[in-house]
């Protein structure tokens, strides 16, 4: 078993240049900390599952060996340019694609110059992967439900287990997705409603106590009530791939808000 590390992190660009006096800096530092931790654990490959990379015709797995460029977020373009550079384990991308396909999931390994890398993956990689560890990127298939995503994650768990490289899985997703619809002063950023805050903390508490089965049951209501990002399928993926296991409590390193949405840096026990 080479799943060595797993975490759930936010992926909004506010984290890269945190506004002074905002809570974004603490989230960014927590992400840097998990980068240090996974390096100390000897991780040789980081797999990103970002709910900001949405695919329609099944799941996509990035297979372009090297990717670099400058990214400008479609929504948060005023935050500036984000240089990025990825070294992708393309052979493992093919293995993941084959494993998922064998399990009945339409999956394609893609290799196109200029393919848009999503902001969440770029932000996470910038903060976590500061020393060029090999990566993998997996899309969030829009039409996969929570249970399907659990099964999809399971299909990749076998590929990871059969491989020798110590691997970290990083799910990139917000918690509650209700943002402020207007510009705000970042110093006054907070979860957009007490109800969302309560829900986020309830879900974090369940993850912290290792009560993932209970969390699974609550996700549909949580997603509907708080617009948890893409049905909070990030947790489904982590469940399937074996990172979020019952009775193995996760550790919440930081919880806060990004433009009203919920953001947490959570490390799982692997």
């Amino acid at each position, binding site marked *: 078993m080479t799943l060595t590390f797993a975490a759930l992190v936010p992926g909004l660009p506010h984290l890269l240049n945190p506004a002074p006096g905002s809570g974004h800096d603490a989230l960014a530092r927590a992400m840097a900390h998990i980068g240090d931790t996974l390096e100390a654990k000897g991780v040789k490959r980081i797999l990103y599952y970002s709910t900001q*990379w*949405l*695919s*329609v*015709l*099944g799941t996509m797995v990035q297979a372009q060996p090297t990717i670099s460029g*400058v*990214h*400008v977020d*479609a*929504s*948060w*373009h*005023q935050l*500036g*340019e984000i240089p990025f550079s990825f070294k992708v384990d393309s052979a493992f991308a093919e293995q993941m694609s084959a494993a998922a396909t064998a399990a009945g999931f*339409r999956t394609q390994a*893609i290799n*196109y*110059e*200029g*393919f*848009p890398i999503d902001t969440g993956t770029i932000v996470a990689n910038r903060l976590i992967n500061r020393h060029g560890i090999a990566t993998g990127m997996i899309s969030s298939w829009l*039409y996969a439900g929570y249970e399907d995503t659990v099964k999809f994650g399971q299909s990749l768990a076998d590929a990871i287990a059969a491989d020798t490289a110590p691997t970290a899985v990083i799910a990139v997703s917000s918690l509650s997705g209700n*943002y*402020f*619809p*207007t*510009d705000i002063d970042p110093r006054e950023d907070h979860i957009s409603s007490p109800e969302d805050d309560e829900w986020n903390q309830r879900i974090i508490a369940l993850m912290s106590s290792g009560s993932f089965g209970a969390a699974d049951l609550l996700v549909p209501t949580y997603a509907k009530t708080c617009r948890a990002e893409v049905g909070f399928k990030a947790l489904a993926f982590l469940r399937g791939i074996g990172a979020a296991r019952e009775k193995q409590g996760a550790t919440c390193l930081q919880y806060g808000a990004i*433009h009203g949405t919920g953001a947490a840096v959570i490390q799982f026990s692997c």
Partner: protein
Amino acid sequence: MSGASEGRILGGWLAPHPPHLVYAENPPQNEPRSSGGWEMLRWAYDECRAKLKAQRPDVIIVHSPHWQTTVGHDVLAVPKLQGLSVDPIFPHLFRYKFDLQVDVDLAESISEEARALGLTSKPMANPAFRVDYGTITSLHMMNPDWDIPMVGISANNSPYFHDPKTAQDEMIKLGEATRIAIQKSGKRAVLAASNSLSHLHFSAEPNPALPEDMSREHVFSHAQYEWDVRVINLLRAGKIFELMNILPDFMEEAVAEVKAGSLMWMLSAMEFPQLPAKLHGYGNVIGTGNAVMEWDLTEMHSRGTGSTQL
């Protein structure tokens, strides 16, 4: 430029953006090659191209559902935008080298007028910005020579965040802001609502080995087809009020892409013209319903028919 006289909108186009249409045409800007396909829609766009050649507008303004912004209705405001746009859904079909001239003055004015009407809006001023494939596809299909400056407006996420009425009210204000800015600019503008009609689609390509296999192309469902025909008939009859009444159901039942607000923005900018729209063509792309339709406001003005404030 038309001089110091008040600017005006020459017309509006429903200009759907399936990247398949660019792929099927094999323009030099797009890397993938095809053997054609989706001719009914492409021939419809030929009529748009001819019309624009005759009209010579100063600017084309496009509202695209695929430039989604969380906060605000943003506007491209960099004089020149260049780069490679790869469709994240259909990268095997659309890898397009774009080179856009933006009418920055008008863009900034639209944003300013939007703010004056109480909307959140800001100019997008970053030259490294990658333009979305919806904007590029609609503009390419309308004007493949790219010799008319453009303004691109984002689709604010409000239709998916607020109730439908609040969201569409924002699009109505955005249309008003666009019209005011055009009038102040002295320019002759053509508008483009870059959206499909019914938007349920196949979850897999019917023939991955030949994406342009027209023997496998058809509408997703008969119910969607009926919705598309109903909407097109209302537009062809100029029954804008009736259309407004059924739009919420259309959005819900046919997952219509008009929900993103492009059509409402355009109709509002044109002051909801009581003018029969001309259907140039209808076709399906991976199951979605797409119509190329035209509102020629120069005809309306010459006939003396009116428009309506909602």
